[in-house]
């Protein structure tokens, strides 16, 4: 495996991990999340600029005793309230409002994109939920890593392009607004640290994929 392939595996794990952190925290999922965090700690994350935000989040995660203690906060921020969720973690809430389209348009676009990528939406969350979108990116990183492992730079770069495009057209088109809402609604809470870490990682990953796409030489 090339070094860049190892990094793709790390990114695959981080996307899956962050997707889990922004899903509803059941007992089993929470235990898995913790275990995944411990595994990811063994990767050289300190090589990357998002390490500081990642570590703050990891430390906060270690201090959470059970999933139950996050349940109320998750529901208050992301699930429901008297006037709806404070910070809906779904793309259509932000993008449909900005572009004047309907929620169904955003979801339909995403489902079409998943189909084109050869993915089937099986997640518990909605197609435009942040956890779903992060899991899609995780899958694309896994494919990229497979490409590097097979010494197929062309396939790997194709998947890098897909990641970069999906980040630009979908996740980054709304994540900043979502994160600002979370920070505002719960400035000292656990989920503010989660969105800080995801924000740092997504920003870095967009730059990372773009830099690789521009630089990797694909042989004819």
């Amino acid at each position, binding site marked *: 495996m*090339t*070094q860049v392939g190892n990094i793709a595996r790390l990114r695959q794990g981080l996307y899956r991990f962050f997707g889990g952190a922004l899903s509803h925290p059941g007992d089993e999922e929470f235990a898995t999340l913790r275990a995944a965090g411990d595994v990811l700690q063994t990767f050289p994350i300190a090589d990357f600029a998002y*390490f500081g935000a990642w570590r703050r989040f990891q430390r906060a995660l270690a201090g959470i005793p059970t999933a139950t203690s996050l349940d109320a906060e998750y529901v208050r921020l992301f699930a429901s309230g008297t006037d709806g969720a404070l910070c809906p973690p779904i793309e259509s809430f932000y993008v449909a409002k900005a572009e004047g389209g309907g929620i169904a348009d955003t979801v339909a676009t995403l489902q079409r994109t998943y189909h084109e990528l050869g993915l089937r939406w099986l997640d518990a969350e909605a197609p435009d939920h942040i956890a779903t979108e992060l899991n899609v990116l995780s899958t694309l990183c896994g494919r990229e890593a497979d490409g590097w492992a097979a010494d197929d730079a062309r396939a790997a770069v194709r998947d890098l392009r897909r990641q970069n495009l999906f980040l630009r057209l979908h996740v980054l088109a709304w994540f900043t607004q979502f994160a600002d809402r979370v920070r505002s609604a719960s400035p000292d809470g656990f989920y503010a640290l989660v969105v800080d870490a995801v924000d740092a990682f997504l920003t870095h990953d967009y730059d990372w994929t773009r830099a690789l796409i521009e630089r990797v*030489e694909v042989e004819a």
Partner: protein
Amino acid sequence: MNVAIVACREQSDPGGRDAAGLTFVNELCAGPRKLASVAGADRLVLVLHRNRYVLAQVQKHTREMGIDPVGVQIVHWDETQGGSHRLGVMLAGAAARAAVTVDATPQQVKPVLPVRLNRRALLSMPRPVYSAVPEIDRDACVAAEGCRACAVECPKEAYAWSGGRIDYDKEACVSCGRCVTTCPAGAIATPAISPSMVHAAIKAMVEAASEPVGVAFMCSRRSESPPGPGWYPLEVPCAAMVPGTWPIAALILGAGAARIVPCTAAGCSLAHDDVVTGNMDVARALLEASGIEPELVPQSWRDVAKTPPFATSTLVDPFGVEGAHETIVTLAALVEHEVRIEHHRSPTGIVEVNTSTCTMCMKCVSVCPADALSQERDGDELLLTFDAARCTACGQCPSVCPEVARGAIECHQRIDSTAISAGPTTLNRATAARCEICGEAIAPAPMMERIASLLGNEHPATMGYLIRRCVNCRGS
């Protein structure tokens, strides 16, 4: 703020080891993981040997310490540069600078990878190095009013103005920082350099030195130090980002000399020497106009003056968005006479209006990014006012003036201490033509007169409506 100063113990200068607050670590350049032994610091100054450390490793281990590596100040030192006193002055500057650094946001860093990655490079790709890049404060940016100063200044076309918004391409950016000092709204910031970092470093070096200090604004990518004695580097992302008033501010803060060091001879591919030379010209012309020896801002290395040209004076924010104006006014006060020059790299400007051709349409006001031009009211009159203390000579105002061909407005790239001190002045005034039915203002009278002169006698009925009635009453 706890600033730790950590030096690699290959130092051969024994005096340097006595400098207050200095922690030595054996072979730090080769093994930056030893930084873990330095606990409790918020900010870091590292004294390292040039070309003997790997920056990516230093950044990694700094990150593990919980310190943002972008804010770490690295002082390159070896015994050929001088004795312990010189090191002490450099460390004072670096520590002061480190103390006021602000952590980078995720948008303010980017990974820098090798230019091409072939199969072999992919197998053993080195750790990424991160470089600081600028970030636009969208709330402060005035691109919606037409400002595109950053796009004009950027040598790599990393900025593009489109539909009232500036798009920034991080990948194209080379972190030269010219956009930061050009933005008339102060809306662009980079963690690599800030007004407070420059200010703190100069003050600390002047205070720490026992002799007059020469401040050399130098590109941080240069591989050599100033050929002392007396000259100390103040590293900036690119020498071309340093406006002509910065060396003057350094002198006012107590430096004995100051210069901006061009880079083309050192192999810089950006080749900004024309900009650097222009900014140096501005500084020297300012000194000359003030009756002060221009060689205090020398074009080549020379001895630093034995005594600073001024008693150290207070400047509040000489390197900030309005710092050029503050520096000029302070300079004029120190020499007790007017300072006035005209130069194509002037960081300040003077707007003049020809009252016989200006129609008071106020388009210039709507695009002025620094709010130097504004519209006021004085009873029944409209006033076009100008505050030279805000003008950055961006040239937006003549570019949108519909009467510029008739000389209605001019933006001079001029430094004029009297005008800057004067406060807002009225450039033009006019009464409004009022609706004969409701009494509402229709438009400034000179604008109506101009329209009438253009239409002539061909459309008297249309003119009658336009001049006498407002939009709402034209159907009455």
